């Protein structure tokens, strides 16, 4: 009897844990509105940003697998010459590896990207962004032309930043893709991980 009760508890617990973990993967994370003034301000504040030139900010989170895949993609394709691209690397305060941002910076700069680091709190304050990976594109006039995710589906390997930028530069209307990845702000983390399994310190 005790065994059966235990199994019942275990089964229920496993279901909740699984659902909780899975939610983080499949939920589309909140993105700031394109009209948010903080976004406009951040477009003008990036390293090497030149007024009148198209610019793109790639907001990537240190502890986010999806961000890492976007980063790998960016490093592979290297920075485009037709716009100023900046990697905004959000450090994870709980991350064990404190040297990683320096490594990433070196890689990014070698690939032609501007690089700046941030913290989750600073990110929210400066960019109004609470999740990653997040793409912000401006046309040099100070207007936000794109604010959204990189992929059309969760877990997709089809990173569409190139198409997005191409489309925007071609004058087409490009809809914002959902952000599939990780919550950066504690608010969103609590929202999608109420059990604290993924984002809490030592979480799984």
């Amino acid at each position: 009897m005790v065994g059966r009760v235990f199994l019942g508890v275990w089964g229920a617990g496993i279901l909740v844990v699984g659902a909780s973990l899975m939610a983080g993967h499949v939920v589309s994370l909140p993105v700031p509105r394109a009209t948010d003034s903080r976004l406009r301000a951040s477009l003008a504040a990036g390293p090497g940003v030149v007024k009148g030139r198209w610019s793109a900010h790639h907001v990537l989170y240190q502890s986010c697998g999806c961000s890492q895949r976007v980063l790998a993609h960016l490093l592979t394709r290297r920075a485009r010459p037709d716009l100023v691209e900046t990697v905004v690397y959000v450090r994870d305060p709980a991350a064990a590896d404190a040297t990683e941002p320096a490594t990433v910076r070196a890689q990014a700069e070698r690939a032609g990207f501007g690089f700046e680091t941030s913290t989750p709190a600073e990110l929210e304050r400066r960019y109004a962004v609470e999740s990653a990976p997040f793409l912000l594109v401006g046309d040099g006039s100070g207007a936000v032309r794109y604010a959204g995710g990189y992929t059309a589906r969760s877990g997709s390997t089809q990173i569409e930043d190139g198409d997005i930028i191409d489309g925007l530069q071609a004058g087409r209307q490009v809809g914002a893709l959902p952000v599939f990845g990780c919550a950066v702000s504690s608010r969103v983390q609590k929202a999608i991980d109420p059990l604290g399994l993924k984002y809490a310190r030592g979480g799984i």
Partner: protein
Amino acid sequence: MKRLISYLVLPVEISAFERQYLARMNRIALIFFFCHIPVFIGVAALAGTSPTRAAILTLLALIGPAVAYKTLQNPRHLSVVFGFTAMCMGGILVHIGQGSMQIEMHFYFFVLIALLAVFANPLAIVTAAVTVALHHLTLYLLLPRSVFNYDASIWAVVVHFVFVILESVAACFVARSFFDNVIGLEKIVQSRTNALSDRNRDMRLVLDNVGQGFLTIEPNGTVSAERSAIAARWVGGYVPGKKIWEHLGELDSAGADWFRVAWDSIADDVLPLDMSIDQLPRRWTAGKTTFSLEYRPLIVDGRLTQMLLVMSDVSAQLEREQSEIEQRDFMRLFQCLLKDKKGLLEFFSEADDLVSKIVTPEVTGPELRRLVHTLKGNCALFGLSALAAFCHDLESNLLDAGGAMTGSKREQLGRIWGLFASNLRSLLGSDRADRVEVDQTEYAAVLDALDGNAAREEIALRIKTWQFETARTRLTRIAEQTRAIGSRLGKGSLNVVIEPNDVLLFPESWSAFWSSFTHAIRNAVDHGIESPEERLAVGKPREGQIRLTTKLLDDELWVEIADDGRGIAWNLVRERAAAAGLPHESREALVEALFHDGLTTKGEISEFSGRGIGMGAVRAICRKMGGSVQITSTEGKGTCLSFRWSNVHDRLDALVLGPISSPTIENQTQEAEGHLQ
């Protein structure tokens, strides 16, 4: 719905085979899932996720099946736990395998659902499917938007759902089929075995409660273990290797060797099976109990595989039949008494004499056989079936035993005869044979002779003849018996003609002859007279004719019996005589062979004839009385058997009575033709 549930939920009973199979499969499944730990750590490392996290999550998922493995007694329940675990493992894999292969990690779910069919339990698959559903439900409760991720439409969710359902349905079908046709096969066999056992038990109940005993015998004579309760009670329990004749020999050892020899002919398979079975005994006696034995060969592919022996205790039946026969015999006795008291008394006297000789231990061999045969014939003539049947069996035993009779048989005969004698005495009361009866005509004739002053010696001689029997009376009695035999042998009504010729015979002198004369009568009827159909076919009258004659010619007494039957088949006699090693070259030799004990032209032994003893018996008596026998026979025309004695005048035991030489009685004797010779 009920059918669906009964399809998905297996019957409660778990066979030993299924338990054993599931125990093995569950053990393999546990090992399989524990093997996930290093694999998932590797996947996490490759996918760039946390190996530690992978290990922790996998171990967490394995706690359940590990506990279930230790605590659950029902192996099917453990399989269900594995169904749940499989889906949890899939979730972990997708979680830790995020990245470029994350979508492909979902194959795990479909593979595992299919693999769950090895448990042959649809519930394990249903559990997996329900786990997935519950996972999404929980997901929805936690984060409603996550179910419809990337803003997928409801139809995208439906597509996922349909695929899982489709595979689950297929896997359930496979699992159930696996259970029904493989895992459950043993159960089906067991179920049918149980049903057969039930039927066998019921059948056994029936067999054990019928009056017959059933045994099966192997071709080598060994009695199988299967036997009904009553058979076990009669012949004992199963003893490996024990032969049927050993079992029966414990009841009565006398026939055990016979049984063994007869069974050997079955085992040798030389003779036709039916013929071999006919050699087996039909009756077996154990003390006062008599069993009838029936044999039913069990043939498979033309070969005897077993013999079913059906034993029945027929003691009560035999006793009843015996009682009925005795009752019938008693009635016949009564009828005979009313009809021919003198004849019956003579028969009794003769038969009593025969019995007293038969039960004498010194009488053995051919003489004993003739006496028994004569007694049988006389009993049959008077319709005493029980005695005749006993004598018939006695004759068979004598042949089997080489002419010797056991003391028990003598006692038995004495007992049966004693019963008959007792019955007869009760009928007679004080009306015994030791008196002289005279009919009114004779009485008046003698009285008149006295009144007419006839010679004293003549009157005295006349009175002396009152103790004589007229041949007419004797032949009339024999004629009636002859007709009775003809009727019983299917020879139709016989025309029996008597020609007594006023012969008188002194009973005490001739009783032995008349007693054995029955053999001549039975031979004439049974061997000589054809069936009505045969007679008509050869142009003879339907009724066979038998002529019985007595006559005194000069000083010689003739007793003849002549029939118009088929005559003696001399060729057949020659053949049988040759086979018996007897002279057979001349007619005289063949006639002599006819009187030889054991030679018969009849194929079958009946209550009346067929043993080849009667002719020898009647000739022996005839010769003992100083007479001779002549046979004349023409094939197709008939046979005449003529017994002759000379010098009867001197012996004064046969005469023809004329009228007393007195005028008053001269015309009163109608059939007398001459004076006392």
